[in-house]
Structures are given as structure tokens and as C-alpha cells.
């Protein structure tokens, strides 16, 4: 009995071992150190996407205005553009107060719909047709809210996300405008090393309110004649009429560009 049991066990072990051998032959040994680096490049290629989406915000504003003829059905989109056209002049009249003004209008708009239901309670049987108007008003109230969030500069700065970067095209626009005003003498000794940093403060319309050398640049300019000339060239560039107001800055990113660290770097000059 005991030998029969032992035979059965050994048969079981033998079968198990053969099965294991068969499986190894088919699937191979497991690779405990196998790591696959291939997915990484795919992740990297996705990074530029959010920048591209944000850089499209400004240029898209104007084209949206054009498809006016659609009013009836896509009301949410079409009605949203005309108010933007009307409201655009506001920041121009008093650009500095934009954030303050922005807070007020939405509150008023919200209050109005609340008052109207109260009137309904008081005059409940007077005008049933008011319900239809109220519905329309509600629709209107519902529509402008997203519009303000998307396209009004003031509304955007209120919800401004400081982590949103400037797009490459926006940065290039700033660089090119200032570069046109910057006259640098490449013949100075070690001219490539004369990197000057200017800290600038801008108003919401892009006007340079204040421009002064960084503490490091200020100290170098005081002790080095060549550096002093390079520093002067940088400051003069920002005082040129063509550069006193930087064009094309996105209003909704004012929080990002209201202070700039302008680095005048001639190292790529021959």
C-alpha cells in the first residue's frame, strides 16, 4: 500500500515536472529584469500640446466674430461673440481698472434674475407670458457667463492661472519687437560676454512703466566701461518710441507679463 502511494506521488511529481518543462519550452523562463523604455518618447511628444492650445486663445477671438450669420440655432456660440465685440473697447478706455470692473458686472447680472422671480411672486397672475421672457432671460444669463469666462480679458485675469506659460509665438513677438530697438556694438572687447539684465514693469496695455538694471548688472556697469555702454544700449532700447509699448501681449496673461526680466544677450553675434 505504502509503495503504491509512493509510486502515485512520484508519478504526480514526475508529471508536474514534465509539465513545467513543457511550459518553459513553450513560454521560456520569466525575465525578472525586463523593462521596456519604448513608451517614453510617446509621452514626451504630448508635452507641447497644452502650449499650442493656449497660444491659440488670442488669435481665435477675432475669427469667432466672423461667423455671425448663424444666430438661430448655435445661439450659445453666436450670441457669445457680439458681446465680446461690444465689450472690447472697455479695457481700452480704462485698462488699469479692468480687474475691478470685471467683478461688478457679473454680480449685477446675477442679481437681476433673482429679483424677477420675486416680482413674479408678487404679481403671480399678471403676466404668464413673462415666464417665456424669463426663460429667455435665463437662457441669456446662462449664455453670457461662459462667454465672459472665455473672452473677456478682465474675467480671465480674475481666474488667471499663473502656471499658464506664454506661448512661443507670444514670446517671439516680444523678442522681435525689442530686438529691433536694440543697437549693440559688437566691436567692444569681449562683446559676447556683455549680457545685460533689465527688470521692467508694464501696464496692462503693454506700456513699459519702469525699466531698471538688475542689481548684478547695475554693479557691473558701475565698474566696467564696456559693460556700462552695453547697459546703456539696453536701457535706450526700451526708451525708443517703437518699444515704449509692446504690442500683441495677451491681455488674459497680464499676470504673467506685467513684470519682465529682459536679458539682452549678444553672445550669438559674430
Amino acid at each position: 500500500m505504502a509503495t503504491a502511494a509512493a509510486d502515485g506521488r512520484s508519478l504526480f511529481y514526475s508529471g508536474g515536472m514534465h509539465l513545467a518543462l513543457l511550459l518553459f519550452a513553450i513560454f521560456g523562463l520569466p525575465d525578472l529584469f525586463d523593462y521596456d523604455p519604448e513608451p517614453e518618447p510617446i509621452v514626451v511628444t504630448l508635452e507641447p500640446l497644452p502650449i499650442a492650445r493656449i497660444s491659440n486663445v488670442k488669435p481665435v477671438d477675432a475669427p469667432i466674430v466672423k461667423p455671425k450669420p448663424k444666430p438661430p440655432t448655435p445661439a450659445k456660440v453666436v450670441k457669445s461673440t457680439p458681446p465680446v465685440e461690444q465689450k472690447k473697447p472697455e479695457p481700452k478706455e480704462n485698462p488699469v481698472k479692468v480687474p475691478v470692473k470685471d467683478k461688478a458686472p457679473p454680480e449685477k447680472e446675477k442679481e437681476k434674475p433673482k429679483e424677477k422671480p420675486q416680482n413674479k411672486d408678487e404679481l403671480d397672475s399678471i403676466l404668464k407670458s413673462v415666464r417665456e421672457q424669463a426663460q429667455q432671460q435665463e437662457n441669456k444669463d446662462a449664455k453670457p457667463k461662459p462667454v465672459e469666462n472665455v473672452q473677456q480679458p478682465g474675467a480671465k485675469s480674475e481666474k488667471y492661472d499663473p502656471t499658464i506659460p506664454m506661448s512661443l509665438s507670444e514670446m517671439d513677438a516680444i523678442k522681435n519687437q525689442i530686438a529691433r530697438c536694440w543697437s549693440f556694438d559688437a566691436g567692444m572687447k569681449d562683446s559676447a560676454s556683455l549680457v545685460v539684465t533689465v527688470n521692467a514693469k508694464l501696464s496692462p496695455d503693454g506700456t513699459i512703466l519702469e525699466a531698471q538694471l538688475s542689481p548684478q548688472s547695475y554693479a557691473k556697469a558701475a565698474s566696467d566701461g564696456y559693460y556700462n555702454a552695453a547697459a546703456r544700449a539696453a536701457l535706450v532700447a526700451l526708451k525708443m518710441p517703437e518699444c515704449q509699448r509692446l504690442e500683441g501681449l495677451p491681455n488674459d496673461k497680464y499676470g504673467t507679463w506685467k513684470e519682465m526680466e529682459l536679458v539682452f544677450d549678444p553672445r550669438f553675434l559674430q
Partner: protein
Amino acid sequence: MKNSSLRFLIPSVWCVAMLALASPANAALKVVIDQPNFKPLPIAITDLSSNSGEGGTIGKDMTEVIEADLERSGLFKPISHSAFIEKVGYNFSLPRYADWRQINAEGLVTGTVVTDGTGKMKVTFRLWDVAQEQQMAGKEFNTLTRNWRRVAHLVADEIYKRITGEGAYFDTRVVYVSETGPAQKRIKRLAIMDQDGANHKFLTDGRYLVLTPRFSPNTQEILYLSFASGKPRVYLRDLQTGREESLGTFEGMSFAPRFNNDGSKMVMSIADRGDTDIFELDLRTRRMRQLTKSPGIDTSPSYSPDGRQIVFNSDRGGSQQLYLMNADGSGVKRLSFGDGRYGTPVWSPRGDMIAYTRMQGGSFYIGVMRSDGSGERDVSQGWLVEGPTWAPNGRVLMFQRQTGGGGKTRLYSIDVTGRNLREVLTPADASDPAWSPLLP
């Protein structure tokens, strides 16, 4: 234990606090502008006004010289007087900056000339920064009226220095070899003039051949090669007395002389029995020392501004290239590795560059490289361009240029960037220019 944990905790808290303080600075948007333009600086130079007719005439003449100096540098663009809105008179005090901004002036120069009728005058000038609305420089000169031209150069130098950060170079002179007559019977004379061509005069009469004049650091002496004795010899000439002196008689032919930075020594080449080497002569002790001993031709030595090194050209490697050695002749290393043959190296007074002549494919080039041999580039090219010499600020080069087919040989100046090529006007053909240091 408690103490040790505190020892780590305090620096950690400090670091965190510093990082927190640093974050607002990072909030500013960083924009790197790396493609500047270059345009000459528009500057308004008003006539130096005076309370007398004589002073008024001198003031006008001085203004013309100042404008010409600054314009010729290529870094300034004087604005026409007819565009001026504000009229600046003798009692002028402060500029109306808006008026000068309106005509795009970035700098403004005002000044006065006061004469006393005895041949003396007082010249004052002020340089104003129109953009920053402040005075940048101001100076007063008391001198004789006949020195008006030199004072004008000094005023131009002050303006140039203050705005560009460079050293001055307008109050300088140039010595060169004036050439007249047919090619077979060429008459060569030493001549000297102000850097703008004014006050020209000949130093030798042309009876014997002269070559390669070089200024001493004190600007009162020149070294040059002369055939006065029938054989080529290096001579020293005192510019004030006109006295000439041969610097010894050597076996063979001596040539390519040049002073060191303080004028106490000179280097030259001596060719003897088919071998040309570089020698140093102490001008006080007249002791000679041989610096190179290689077979072949070692010549055109030029000291670094600190006097520690010498650049020269040699064919020791098979082709004519530039080499660098210590002032005692040790540590020789090759500096140029480009195509063609390199010659006549001259170390910039600024110390950062070496100018040279390069010959390649039938053309000549004036080039510059950093003193370590890097950054080589051509600044001028022609049928025959050679013999570069630096202005004392190391910013401008002068050289001789001959047009094709044996045409005119004239002097030209050019900015070290390769911009602003200008002919330096001379009465006749000119070669071998040497720019003086600033006049004392």
C-alpha cells in the same frame, strides 16, 4: 541629541525661507533678446558758442572737427544743424530734452569757447544723455588758440569714450611711407600726419629708401628701416629734434623692428647666411639677445600689451604661419592653422586680438583672431592689402591697399567688426602705416 537635531533644523528652515523669498523674483517673465541690430548713434553737436567773433569762428571749426571724428568712427551719426529745434546760445544752461528727442537725438553736445585776445582760450563742453535726461560728461580746457584742432580731438575722444566704453583714439598721429614716382624709380619718404589727415609733413627727403616705421610708446620716437648707409639698418629717430641714430651694426640685414610696451626694448629680425631669426635689443644697455634659433625665416615680431609674449610669423612648419612665444623666446607654439600663408601679425593694444595679413589663392586678406588663435575672421580683402596697424584703443585698424594692375596704393581704416571701411586721405601713394599711441 536635541542640539544636533536643531543643528539640521535651523539651516533647513532658513533654506525654505530663502526659497520662499526667491519665488517672487521668478514670477517675472524672462525674455532673452539675442539678435540686436547695429545703427550709429544719432548725436546732435551744437556749435560751440562764444562771446567774441574770434571765439565763434574757433567754435564752429572745432564743431566740424568733432563731428568729423565721431562720424568717421562709424559709431555715431551727427544730426544736421538745420534739424535742431532748440537754439543753443552762449548763455545756455539746460537742454529742452523733448526738443532733442523729437529729432531722434540720443546724445547732445553743447559748449563754449572764450578767448581773451592774447592768444589764449577756455573751451568747455557738456555731453547730455537725451534718453536718460542727464549730463554724461563735461570738461574744460585752458590752452592757446592755435591748439584748437587738438582740443577738438580731445573733446571728440571724451564723447567717444563716455558713450562707447572704448578708449580714445582721435588725438593720435600716423606715420607712414609716402611713395611717388614710377615703379622702377620709386621715391619713398617718411611722412607723419594727424589720424584725420591734417597737419601732414614729410620727415625724410627721399634720397634713400625707408620702410616699416613704428612709433615708440611715448610717441616722440620712431623706429624704421633705412638704406641710408647703403645697407638696410634699423634706425631710431627723435620726432622733435629730427636726430637719427643707427641701432648698431649687425652681421647681415636687420629689419621688421618694433618697440615693446614701455619702450625700453625692441625686437627685430636679422637675416644672416640664409637664416632669419628674431633678436631683442635692450635700448638702455644696447645688449642683444637671440630669441629664435630655428632654421628658416622667423620675422615680424610683435609684443603683447603686457610685454610677456611675442607673436611672429615663421615658415618652420613648412608654410608661413603665426607663432607665439614667451618674451624670452621659450614656449613656442603655433597659432594659425588656416589655409594660406600668414604674415605681419600685430597684437592689439587692447590685448584681446591679433591682426595679420593672409595670402591665399592670389588674394590678400586682413584678418583678426583672438590672442589664443581662435575666432579667426577676415575684415578686408583685396588685390593687395597688407601691413595692419591698430589704433591705440584696439578698435580700429589701418592698412595699405593697392588696386589691381599696379594701381594706386592708399591707406584705409576699418572697424574691427569689418564695418566702416574708409580711405585715409594722403597727398600721394602711401604704405606701411603705423598708428601712434595717444598723444601726451
